[in-house]
């Protein structure tokens, strides 16, 4: 579609915007930000641009919200606050309930060989379940494969805050085409660094030294707050690398 439809909370989605299902057996999938009012009215619950995917027969609303709400299967960066008998209590977002991380929820962990996480450690985990009434539950392995896939304790490095929309764009498979983010690729040509992106708006960066880590973090935050396009991002990276 050429132009994006902007929707506000409470707007009804008209049927001409909905994707025409080629196979009528495939039901329409509602993504985040939409609610079904029975029998067949779809209303938007958040403000943002409406996106339609013909192939998957799905519609959703893209919105850059301020507060992260845990969704199942999201990868997040959490901080361990304290531990009790079987469970670590971790904070995903400040000022909310703690999420529970079972102490055995790591790849190949048994009662004898469980990892020791201290209060204040950073972990990269996946949200298993999250509902309004219960504490969210997180695990450090992929529930379907059982492998850790990079999750677990993050050692060293530094954590930077980015907006939720930026975190989502960073997690796309094709950052440059779909998300319009070229900073990380540009920096990677000159510097070596490790990075972990959490959907809750936190990015963990680890590089050779303090200056390099700060450079990566600052480049991402500038791209986020200023809303830079791809060319401007390239220019920003060049400027920062020169100052190094």
């Amino acid at each position, binding site marked *: 579609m050429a132009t994006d439809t902007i929707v506000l909370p409470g707007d009804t989605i008209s049927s001409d915007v909905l994707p025409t299902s080629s196979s009528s057996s495939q039901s329409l999938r509602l993504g985040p930000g939409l609610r079904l009012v029975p029998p067949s009215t779809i209303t938007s619950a958040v403000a943002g641009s409406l996106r339609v995917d013909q192939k998957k027969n799905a519609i959703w609303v893209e919105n850059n919200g301020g507060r992260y709400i845990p969704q199942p299967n999201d990868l997040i960066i959490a901080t361990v606050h304290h531990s009790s008998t079987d469970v670590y209590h971790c904070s995903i977002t400040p000022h909310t309930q703690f999420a529970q991380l079972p102490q055995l929820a790591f790849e190949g962990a048994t009662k004898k060989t469980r990892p020791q996480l201290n209060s204040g450690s950073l972990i990269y985990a996946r949200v298993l379940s999250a509902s309004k009434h219960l504490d969210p539950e997180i695990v450090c392995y992929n529930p379907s494969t059982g492998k850790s896939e990079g999750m677990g304790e993050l050692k060293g*490095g530094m954590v930077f805050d980015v907006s939720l929309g930026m975190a989502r764009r960073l997690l796309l498979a094709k950052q440059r085409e779909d998300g319009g983010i070229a900073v990380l690729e540009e920096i990677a040509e000159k510097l070596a660094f490790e990075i972990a992106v959490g959907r809750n708006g936190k990015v963990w960066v680890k590089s050779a030294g303090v*200056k390099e880590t700060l450079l990566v973090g600052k480049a991402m935050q500038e791209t986020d707050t200023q809303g830079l396009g791809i060319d401007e991002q390239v220019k920003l990276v060049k400027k920062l690398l020169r100052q190094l």
Partner: protein
Amino acid sequence: MPREAEPSINERAFILQALQENIRLDGRSLEAYRELNISFGEEYGVADVQLGKTRVLTRISSSITAPYPDRKFDGVFTITTELSPIASPAFEVGRPSDLETHLIRTLETTLRRSSALSTESLCLLAGTAVWSLRADVHILDHDGNLIDCACLATLAALRHYRIPDTSVSGGELTVYSVDERDPVPLALLHHPLCVTLNYFEGGEKVVVDAARVEEQCAEGEVVVGANPQGEVCLMQKGGGGEVDAVVLLRCVDLAVAKVRELGKVVDQALVEDAKRRDKGGMSRELQAENAR
């Protein structure tokens, strides 16, 4: 539930390691303040100060009351602070936290007990009527260094405020309204400001104007209140790790230099505000004084 996010082990280690190389997270030097913006409201006595992401608004208001019976010749000057959840979710309404008590004690000592404002000048009729000046400090955003920001806002508001003109003849007090006579500035004897210094590694590294995450990782803080003439009116080190006396002296020197810089910024902001109000240069024409 108000529970502020504590920095993780990684962040703490990173900040300390960066300080070893004299680097701060936002790239400024150890002794640099964040970007300082002072703006005044349409009314006299409203100052909005932004120090990086920390933002404080102070409002001065006045009324006439009876003086305290043991201080018949002094006016009343009270400072009240409000730390509401608008500033940070860690604040609760109605319950004064330790930070609030610390803030208000520091402001009181620096601005009230140092006689920055001459309370005798607020006296109208001895024993009967005095001005009661009230400074309401509203914290709008908390990203570290509330004390310096609040002190800047309160001092700027005090210097900006105009109190109604009065005259006393034969025991009768006349208060002139804005239409009758221009309000007059307050009698400030000196302009004290506070500088908060956070120290790491037992005083080896001293950092001025810490952001919230730097404050949370610091070993302790020293608050110095001084005026641009170099007179120190407050020195506070509440808890924290132990430091050498030499470090404290260094902190005081650094703080006095910073107060001079900050004082100049406040002067500049007041001059610009006066220019903005005085469009067309008419205020010189409208003055009742003649040049002799």
